[in-house]
């Protein structure tokens, strides 16, 4: 019986499509009131007055809470990153457009929406800036966070200036990516219920129940145990639900103040600013290579934006440190402060925006050298980490290149373009860290012979209910249907944030260890039938990274190939075909893994061609603030998308042998498409997204 890797159907699929799965806002809570945020129209300034009289007169309105009358929080609602500084009606400052400044609470959702619109905020505006270019002179270095550890802003090796001089050809260019926003299908939503004056239960759409728990405990000065956070299903997150933003604290505050359970969901336009997004980046690349294509210098300097009051660094220049063999490497990160909401992790933060720049520059270099772009990458294939000068735990990038190229037909000549169209092909490398963070799990044998496995991770579309049960079943020697996995509750064993491609590796390892511990007990009792008599029987698993992470670099790799069709009159681009081959350690479930990768690749199409949170710079406000104006690919924009796996054994990355697949699918896609557009048109687009106007 094979189990691990089997394409078992998603267990929660039926519940999700029939509506039986309750997302945060849908949890039935008797007597709940509805809260709707009022957000600022200006980008910077001070609230002078808030007129709530019209709103308060409306039928059904329970309260309008503003900084004037809001309960003073007994504690500071701030934790260490990845937590974010929040604005929770405690003062009159406005720090960015769309910042929460009040909340209307009513007996129905419609009445709360109307009341929120009736609130008149009189604010004194101060000059603001939301343009990265305007602040470049004030850029400053700041360390990054990655895989739970601090990463220096700058790393160098050798002498890049010398390397650039030694190259037969060099490319020095600037690439830009725009602000983007996550926009999962399910907007952020929270239900806060005070079950006692000092006991709070929260149903939240979050990627980390434990962080929400800690933040609320701190804000309300409660012991952690008095706050319970539950998230059984999350309708997409992609990073924006990795931090508990203002509305979570405001929901709990409103519930306390109105003495009723309160439901608060963000309206779609409120997803643009107050809950993070990918910051704009400006990336300066300098690369050089010998005539044969051996890299002599890789310099990647990136500047990204953060808010005035918090720090998030988009790690766009990190890959330059680990991806290609070059004697001379210079990777730098700079930040500028703008009057915007704090940006945050957005699918493959850094790697997706950074790979656009790096992989575009390499394509330009290959073009100058007149060699195949794939050949250029093979010439500089890194057999060990070029900065750390130590081995990889495993690396199958060559196999990815081979498989991807073969499936795509890279070595064959281009097929003829359809009449009136231009056809182009491009490729890029993908890489994402094999992250691993401490995680705990518990496995319990029930008297009926079934096993319940638990850990407080999140089902966010990743297939957690299915895949974790598969891991446990495999270790227990049971058929998967005998094992149930439960998650999304702060009373369960602690799991790390479900983000950064961490979960399958980390929780997967903890589940594996818990199942093994239980199996030992079962075996000691003489097998399952006998062990059932002694049920319940428990096994615990604690997984944590060790010293090996200092001696080895752990990366998942992939190769992306794109074919595009361009209408030369209109500048419209269609991605006819995307082929990606990925090596990410052990594949736990071929079906859910394929979905993960496909989702990432499709998002890459959006990053390349569509996504742009457009600021009105005078107002300091995002104006593409609904899904009609903020474009993501429609079904018609997605043609052939083919992810393939390269199986990889890695005994060192983590006990489960897994490098997470959550992010790598998007990495490199925008570059592969941009490179294909160049191949089709001769036009090099260095500023995303590639909209028709840029190709006219």
């Amino acid at each position, binding site marked *: 019986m094979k189990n691990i890797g089997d394409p078992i159907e998603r267990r929660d699929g039926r519940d999700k499509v029939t509506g039986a799965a309750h997302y945060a806002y849908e949890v039935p809570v008797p007597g709940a009131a509805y809260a709707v945020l009022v957000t600022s129209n200006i980008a910077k300034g001070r609230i002078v007055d808030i007129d709530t009289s019209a709103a308060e007169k409306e039928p059904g309105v329970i309260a309008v809470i503003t900084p004037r009358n809001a309960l003073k929080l007994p504690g500071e609602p701030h934790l260490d990153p990845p937590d974010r500084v929040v604005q929770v009606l405690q003062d009159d400052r406005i720090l960015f457009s769309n910042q929460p400044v009040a909340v209307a609470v009513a007996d129905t959702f419609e009445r709360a929406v109307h009341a929120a619109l009736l609130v008149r905020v009189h604010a004194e505006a101060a000059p603001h800036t939301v343009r990265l270019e305007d602040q470049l002179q004030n850029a400053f270095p700041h360390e990054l966070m990655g895989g739970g550890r601090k990463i220096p802003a700058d790393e160098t090796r050798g002498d890049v200036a010398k390397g650039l001089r030694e190259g037969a050809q060099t490319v020095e260019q600037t690439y830009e990516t725009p602000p983007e926003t996550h926009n999962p299908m399910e907007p952020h939503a929270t239900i806060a219920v005070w079950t006692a004056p000092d006991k709070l239960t929260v149903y939240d759409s979050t990627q980390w129940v434990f962080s929400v728990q800690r933040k609320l405990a701190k804000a309300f000065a409660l012991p952690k145990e008095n706050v319970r956070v539950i998230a059984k299903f999350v309708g997409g997150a992609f990073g924006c639900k990795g931090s508990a933003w203002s509305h979570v604290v405001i929901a709990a505050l409103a519930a306390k103040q109105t003495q009723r359970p309160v439901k608060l969901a963000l309206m779609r336009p409120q997803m643009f600013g107050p809950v993070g997004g990918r910051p704009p980046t400006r990336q300066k690349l300098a690369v050089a290579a010998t005539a044969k294509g051996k890299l002599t210098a890789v310099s990647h300097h990136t500047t990204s934006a953060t808010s005035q009051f918090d720090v998030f660094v988009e790690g766009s220049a990190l890959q330059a440190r680990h991806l290609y063999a070059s004697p001379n490497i210079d990777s730098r990160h700079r930040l500028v402060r703008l009057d915007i909401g704090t940006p945050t992790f957005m699918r493959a933060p850094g790697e997706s925006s950074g790979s656009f720049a790096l992989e575009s520059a390499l394509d330009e270099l290959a073009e100058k050298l007149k060699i195949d772009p794939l050949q250029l990458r093979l010439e500089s294939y890194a057999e060990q980490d070029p900065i750390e000068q130590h081995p990889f735990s495993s690396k199958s990038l060559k196999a990815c290149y081979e498989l991807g190229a073969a499936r795509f037909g890279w070595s064959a000549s281009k097929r003829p373009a359809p009449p009136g169209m231009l056809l182009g092909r491009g490729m890029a490398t993908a890489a994402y860290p094999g992250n691993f963070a401490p995680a705990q799990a518990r496995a319990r044998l029930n008297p009926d012979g079934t096993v319940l496995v638990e850990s407080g991770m999140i089902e966010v579309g990743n297939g957690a209910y299915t895949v974790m049960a598969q891991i446990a079943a495999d270790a227990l020697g049971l058929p998967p249907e005998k094992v149930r996995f439960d998650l999304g509750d702060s009373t369960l064993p602690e799991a790390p944030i479900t983000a950064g491609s961490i979960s399958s590796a980390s929780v997967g390892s903890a589940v594996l260890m818990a199942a093994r511990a239980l199996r030992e007990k079962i075996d000691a009792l003489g097998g399952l039938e006998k062990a059932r008599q002694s049920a319940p029987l428990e096994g615990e698993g604690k997984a944590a990274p060790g010293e090996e992470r200092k001696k080895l670099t752990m990366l998942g790799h992939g190769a992306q190939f794109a074919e595009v069709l361009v209408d030369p009159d209109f*500048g419209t681009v269609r991605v006819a075909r995307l082929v990606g081959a990925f090596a990410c350690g052990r594949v736990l479930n071929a079906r859910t893994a394929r979905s993960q990768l496909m989702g990432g690749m499709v998002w890459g199409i959006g990053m390349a061609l569509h996504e742009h949170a457009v600021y009105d710079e005078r107002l300091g406000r995002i104006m593409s603030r609904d899904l009609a104006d903020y474009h993501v690919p429609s079904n018609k924009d997605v043609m052939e998308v083919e992810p393939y796996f390269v199986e990889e054994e890695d005994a060192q990355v983590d006990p489960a042998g897994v490098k997470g697949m959550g992010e790598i699918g998007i990495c490199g896609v925008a570059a592969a498409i941009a490179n294909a557009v160049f191949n089709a048109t001769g036009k090099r687009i260095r500023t995303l997204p590639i909209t028709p106007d840029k190709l006219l």
Partner: protein
Amino acid sequence: MRLFIFQRAQSVDEAVNAQGAFLAGGTSLVDLMKLEVLNPDKVVDITRIGLDKIQEEASGLRIGALATNTDVAEHPLVKQKLPALSEALLSGASPQLRNVATVGGNLLQRTRCAYYRDLGTRCNKREPGSGCDAIDGWTRMHAILGGSEQCIAAHPSDMCVALAALEAVVRVRSATGSDRDLPIAELHLLPGDHPEREFALQSAELITSVFVPATPLAAKSRYIKVRDRQAYAFALASCAAAVEIDGGVVKAARFALGGVGTKPWRVPQAEAMLTGQRADKAAFAKAAARALEGAQPRKHNAFKVELAKRAVVRALSLAAGVAT
């Protein structure tokens, strides 16, 4: 959403006498009511009053105002006699929206200007005299033709562009019970000093049908739409064109532009330039240039001038059967 009176009309006369905002598919009205951009005191449901037939008359098709966008787009007679209309409808919105959106509603579709929809900004169309934040703001999707200092909101409809090129006539029932016919070119108003006045209709008037002449010209009509993605996106530029050719020479031509005007944009002088000319790209390009004369691009939409010209050339070429 504000409180409103809801009334269900059982007949056309009852509808016009009800003196309220007419609710058909609701894809525009309900959306804007939720945003509190439109706040009617009374909403009159007209979905039960018939008016959904598509009928052949002596010289054309009469399309009921309550026929859905899908019904019209997929109707065999429409596909055969008015292909541009079918293509325009299918290029708009999404299948879910087209299944409920009606012809009458589409004729009265409101702009998608982001400022019009955002109560946190100023908009003369939404709140007369308050100012326009769009003109010096994010103008990529805005009009380059027909704007004023008060408003540059683009007209969003694809269907109306095809109807403009096909010289459709809108039939309207007034509160007095009488019918009047209005050429589509007169239905939509330029913003001028009063962008809040969008249609040449009296308050209780109801569009009951639209008549589209089924000419030989119309039978060869085509619609081209350029947009940022392949579906569910408004036009950056679009063109409906119809050309009648005799021996390689243009006998008659009609075309209208979308995505670039504050209303569906038709320039009869540009069409007239084509009559008697060889049907080729050079002639089409001249007519396109004439149609775009007077264009006033703003900060982010200068590209629309050239893009619109190219859309015109493509649409005319397709309609004329000239290689693109």
